[in-house]
């Protein structure tokens, strides 16, 4: 009996030290991830900076009524539509590049992989410099080329329609290196005997890709895609804000939930509106993550997040 208590105490002491180790990190999570959960209530208040959160009057659903009678559809559509394109384009390009890399000698793999990966290290602000060197109306290289070919220079930062193409390309440029690495590494892990056997049976490279490589990549493709679908309501703020130079004429196309929340908060100082849009995004995002995880679990339980 006494021994049992002793071991229990010993156990507790050991766990105590582990708790101590976990404490600093846990504190950061509590302050910056758990306390902001009061954002669940914030949009139902008529927030007043002078009164503070607790003493501000209740607003009922007014903030949401406002949001859904106006901008909600536009920013949701932009967010989801662009993210869908990014996901599809990124998937196809990354798998294709990984398959191509797989055919190449180590030297070229290293070279191509390095180049593809460079944009990942650039911030969207730096990327906006790169974008403007191409797209600047007066000096940009693209307009120079168009003019040299006898066309007329375009006002890239004014005409929204162009950005249906520009944004996916920018997203691809910045992100494809990252996902190519994932798929390429996965291909490297495929048992080489499969390919040797296929070779002996006279399968062409193309047949090997279709019969071995692609099926081997399939679980990863499904899993990564489902995971990005879980995040389809969150957008890359830098891409839509900085890379577009926050150009107002482009808003009909480039305004997404994240830029909307930012603008409502920092430019308009409208806490109610921005927190309502933020909560809407968080809730939809949460449901989507749960749903996509449920799907991943059905496809491949090993890869489910939880």
């Amino acid at each position, binding site marked *: 009996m006494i021994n049992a208590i002793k071991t229990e105490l010993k156990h507790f002491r050991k766990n105590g030290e*582990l708790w101590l180790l976990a404490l600093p990190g*846990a504190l950061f999570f509590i302050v910056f991830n758990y306390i902001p959960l009061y954002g669940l209530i914030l949009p139902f208040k008529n927030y007043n900076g002078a009164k503070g959160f607790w003493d501000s009057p209740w607003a009922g659903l007014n903030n949401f009524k406002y949001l859904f009678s106006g901008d909600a559809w536009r920013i949701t559509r932009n967010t989801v539509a662009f993210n869908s394109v990014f996901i599809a384009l990124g998937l196809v390009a990354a798998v294709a590049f990984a398959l191509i890399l797989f055919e190449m000698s180590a030297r070229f793999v290293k070279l191509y992989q390095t180049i593809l990966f460079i944009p990942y290290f650039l911030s969207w602000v730096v990327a906006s*410099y790169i974008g403007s060197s191409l797209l600047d109306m007066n000096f940009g290289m693209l307009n120079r080329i168009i003019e040299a070919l006898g066309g007329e220079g375009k006002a890239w930062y004014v005409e929204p329609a162009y950005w249906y193409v520009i944004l996916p390309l920018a997203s691809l440029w910045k992100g494809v290196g990252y996902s190519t690495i994932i798929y390429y590494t996965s291909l490297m892990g495929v048992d080489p005997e499969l390919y040797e056997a296929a070779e002996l049976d006279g399968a062409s490279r193309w047949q090997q890709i279709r019969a071995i490589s692609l099926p081997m990549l399939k679980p990863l493709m499904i899993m990564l895609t489902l995971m990005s679908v879980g995040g389809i309501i969150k957008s890359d703020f830098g891409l839509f804000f900085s890379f577009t130079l926050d150009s107002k004429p482009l808003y009909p196309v480039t305004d997404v939930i994240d830029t909307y929340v930012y603008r409502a908060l920092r430019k308009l100082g409208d806490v109610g509106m921005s927190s309502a849009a933020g909560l809407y995004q968080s809730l939809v995002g949460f449901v989507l993550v749960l749903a996509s995880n449920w799907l991943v679990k059905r496809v491949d339980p090993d890869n489910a997040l939880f």
Partner: protein
Amino acid sequence: MAGARGERSRQARQPKRRGGLAILPLHALLGGFCLLCLIPLLLVAAISLTPESLLKSGGYTLFPKAWSTAAYEYTFRNYAQIVRSYGITISVTAVGAVMGLFCTTSIAYVISRPYFRYRRFLSFFIFFTMLFYGGLTPTYLLVTKTLHLKDSLLALILPSVMQGWYVILMKGFLQSLPNSIVESAKIDGARELSIFARIVVPISRPGMITVGLFLMLQYWNDWYSSLLYIDDQNLVSLQFLLYKLMASIEFFKVMAQMAPGSIRIDPLSIPTLGARMAMCIVAAGPMVLIFVFMQKYFVRGITIGSIKG
């Protein structure tokens, strides 16, 4: 770690597949795309080295008719601002990455211990932060109104010290270490804290380098926090400086006249087009090169992190 990835030793033995599919078109395709990725980067460098007059008359081009370092000479006249911004970015990155690395490694160690009683609870506690986000607005009010960190470098550091994803990544690393070392130390009666400090930290160096680099990349490239929390001209980090420079060319001129020790110059004579790109290269170039040089650590993090840790 899941199946496909477990076969690391195979990689070394696998003979490289060559030939077969006509390799040249593949080089053309991938090489072409890589070239398209690189050209804009080279263009920025070329613009920074083109005389302003040529830029104004002929626009941006990869191969200007003449070269000039005037834009850099001009940019370095603002050395005071550049040095200050480098100082701010370096301090924020150093403090943030060290804090993040310490907190991430220690909490990841705790949830990687199979004998930790509250392991499931703590894991979920961390995991939940990846599932649900309170939102920008409450975070902003917390940082500015409750913590009073507006115009403080702490506002750039503290909110992003902990990222659930890095904890999961680090836990993956720690779980891949041989457990026997820790077990035998425990049998020898070593305490958890000293096991962590004397054994775990030294042997998990590769994992810590990877997570540390991700943290450094995150802090180095962060301009969004500055956009939210920094109004003070004296606290402008490198990325935020670039953002402001892009957002308004006027800022450049103002800065030129504020810079101590610089000669007052006619704003119209400032090589704004070239100098902007020169500033971009001076501010972003060196660190990007370092990150590219360290890419193998990032690659390791990506491959371990993609299959959950």
